[in-house]
């Protein structure tokens, strides 16, 4: 009985949390799609500066990591393919697993570490120093002013970053292909492109948009629910990272399953 009520409690908490995230997302969507036609313009300047931080700022580290991931993927798949003398399939193995899965996922994890945590810390600090209250007393909606530009930046930048991650991953695989599997860079890239269907790339990009929405919602929600005191900022920033990673994996599972059954049907 005790256990059942505990499980029930956690499920209710979890649903309430998801509800809060959804509310935040809906408000941001309202300010993006409806409010501009009611005389409340979008804050493009803030969105662009966020996009620079989220997107351009992440490029060096993202490039390096996804290049290595591509190389690792090539090595791991070659370990098995070698037994069948099918090393030429390394290119398609890397290309498909990067675009369908690892490109979007690794990008999301890096963005969580760089930007999801930063959103929570920034908004959390503003909460502690009464800056959020100050916005409200100036009749400025914090969701409109702070959160919506972040959603916009993420939804636009995550697919871009993911595309770049896919490309860098394939390049990483090419390093192995050229060194070990009688490819040239050109034949490797051509083999990768031949292996890919448009739906592989699109399903990955669709997932990355969902990841962007998830990361922003969690980061901003954690920031806004920060209580009083500096130590709260740290706690909610950590929570933002942990919860984002969990929810991104969950969203990944749901969408991967969805695409799987859609393509089967």
């Amino acid at each position, binding site marked *: 009985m005790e256990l059942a009520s505990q499980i029930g409690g956690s499920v209710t908490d979890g649903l309430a949390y998801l509800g809060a995230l959804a509310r935040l997302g809906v408000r941001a969507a309202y300010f993006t799609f409806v409010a501009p036609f009611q005389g409340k313009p979008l804050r493009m300047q803030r969105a662009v500066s966020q996009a620079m931080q989220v997107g351009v700022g992440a490029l060096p580290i993202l490039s390096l990591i996804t290049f290595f991931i591509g190389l690792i993927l090539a090595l791991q798949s070659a370990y098995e393919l070698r037994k069948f003398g099918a090393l030429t399939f390394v290119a398609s193995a890397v290309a498909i697993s990067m675009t369908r899965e690892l490109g979007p996922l690794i990008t999301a994890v890096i963005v969580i570490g760089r930007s999801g945590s930063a959103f929570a810390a920034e908004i959390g600090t503003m909460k502690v120093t*009464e800056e959020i209250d100050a916005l409200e007393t100036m*009749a400025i909606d914090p969701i409109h002013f702070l959160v919506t530009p972040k959603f916009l930046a993420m939804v636009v930048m995550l697919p871009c970053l993911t595309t770049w991650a896919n490309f860098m991953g394939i390049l990483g695989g090419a390093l192995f292909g050229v060194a070990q599997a009688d490819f040239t860079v050109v034949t490797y890239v051509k083999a990768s492109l031949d292996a890919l269907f448009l739906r592989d790339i699109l399903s990955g990009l669709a997932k990355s948009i969902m990841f962007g929405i998830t990361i922003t919602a969690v980061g901003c929600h954690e920031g806004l629910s920060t209580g009083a005191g500096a130590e709260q900022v740290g706690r909610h920033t950590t929570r933002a990272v942990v919860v984002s990673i969990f929810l991104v994996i969950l969203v990944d599972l749901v969408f991967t399953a969805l695409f799987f059954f859609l393509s089967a049907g």
Partner: protein
Amino acid sequence: MDQTENPALQSEAMISLRNLRVSYGDREILHGISFDVMRGETLVILGGSGSGKSTLLRTLVGLERPSSGEIWLKGKNIAAISNEEMDEIRKKIGMSFQGGALFGSMSVGENVALPLREHTKLENPTIEIILRLKLDQVGLAGFENYMPSQLSGGMKKRAAVARALAMDPEILFFDEPSAGLDPIIAAGVDELILDLKKAFHMTIIVVTHELASAFLIADRMVLIDKGNVVAIGTTQEMRASTHPRVRQFLDRVPEPEVSQELDYLQMLTEENRRPSR
């Protein structure tokens, strides 16, 4: 406690509180507050830590919703209006927060200009002029390009006042204007409040526990204790008051130690009983 008897303050009420109750969760912080704030007066809300004075201020500017009671401000009961209507009222009030609450990512000038950019259709050159005027009023002329982190505590407060003044508010709220400042800088902030009062005849509401500053700037004072109004009156009336809580607060007498076990038990149970009322 009928304030309308005071001949010096015959003017109409700017804000009227009627039996205002505010709770956090099931803990009631304010237990039925009623008083009026007159147009053009400076009212100081006095009270110790945890008395509920900050909650009262947050409720007056619409950051907290009362659980019951009424707050009449500009002919509207802000306890029962929509967010859109509240936003319209918020454009007519200014609030200076304890730590300034300036936006760290924006310069002082951008901070002060923000409400103008958000709520008016003024052209940039006009905003620049208003911005310089407001900074000049608080003694920060020429600081528009500084970042808040480059300002001292007193300057941050002045910048926050400039931002609160940006929309030419009818009512100005101050949360602990002298908190965290040395006596000289704090006196400077008091001076600023007096200047604003003289220059604009604004209605000013200040929450503080600094007695010296309170007696300097106030026309009238309200003493809040444990979520109730203990006393309200002019500075002279407060000084002359014989009410034990007022005397204790003004004479800075520490809370008596609870020596009797029975008293202690009673105090604990009293604390427990209050929220459930």
